[in-house]
């Protein structure tokens, strides 16, 4: 039983990691394009340029893997338990934003992210 729980926690971490990588690839591609979008027409043109990037498709692949692992987790674990732990994605994305994208995350933002994580865990458990 304990072994099972650790496997489930590991798999949830895996979905969140895949999701984080997918978001990182998307954000990185957008950063390298460096465009200013203010109209719908510009937004559409921007997205058309974006989907030509192989990195974005790499991201889609990671999203698909993430979804597959998540569906598997849901067949093994109760939804409220899985959902509570799934909120660790917010911490992973914040860490990755700092390390990979060099975003500046101050104390207030960390506090906010922590508060969201606690909140989601409570909503899912309650």
């Amino acid at each position, binding site marked *: 039983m304990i072994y099972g729980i650790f496997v489930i926690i590991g798999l949830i971490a895996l979905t969140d990691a895949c999701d984080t990588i997918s*978001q*990182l690839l*998307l*954000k990185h591609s*957008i950063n390298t*394009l460096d*465009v*200013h*979008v203010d109209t719908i027409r510009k*937004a*559409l043109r*921007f*997205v058309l340029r*974006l989907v030509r990037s192989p990195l974005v498709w790499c991201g889609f692949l990671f999203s698909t893997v993430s979804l597959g692992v998540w569906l598997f987790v849901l067949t093994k674990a109760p939804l409220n338990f899985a959902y509570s732990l799934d909120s660790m*994605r*917010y911490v992973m*994305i*914040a860490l*990755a*934003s*700092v390390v990979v*994208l060099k*975003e*500046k*995350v*101050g104390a*207030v*933002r960390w*506090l*906010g*992210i*922590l*508060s*969201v*994580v*606690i*909140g*989601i*865990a*409570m*909503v*899912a*458990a*309650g």
Partner: protein
Amino acid sequence: MPKKSRLTFKILCFLISIDLLETVAQFCFKKSALGYAQLEIKSFLDAIHFVQTMIPSAYLWLGLLSVIVIFIIWSTILSKVDLSVAVPVCSFSYITVPLVSALFFHEKISFLRWGGIGFILIGVILVSMSSVHKEESR
């Protein structure tokens, strides 16, 4: 670079619209899947067959359309704000889904859940503040 990473009211509205569209997409997928619920899925091939039979369903295409619109809006948002801001602020659905379930399906919201909604709200406000503050200090 100076105008980047600023969370304006407009971007906040876009972020909330993503949560709404996400709900629409999930609703459509569930609706299209329910139409073929009698099929049994035991293997990977069964799953592919299941998706194949869903192709004529209008709900499936409406759901896919929502996903495409979500991607366009999400990319536009990310071209304007930090990833570490956009992702936590997008957690609104954790608040709206219990509220909608309480309103339309008369589900009870427990004390713990109300507390969680409060924490998420405080978190989203703090993250939003951190983004606006950064802009002012420049």
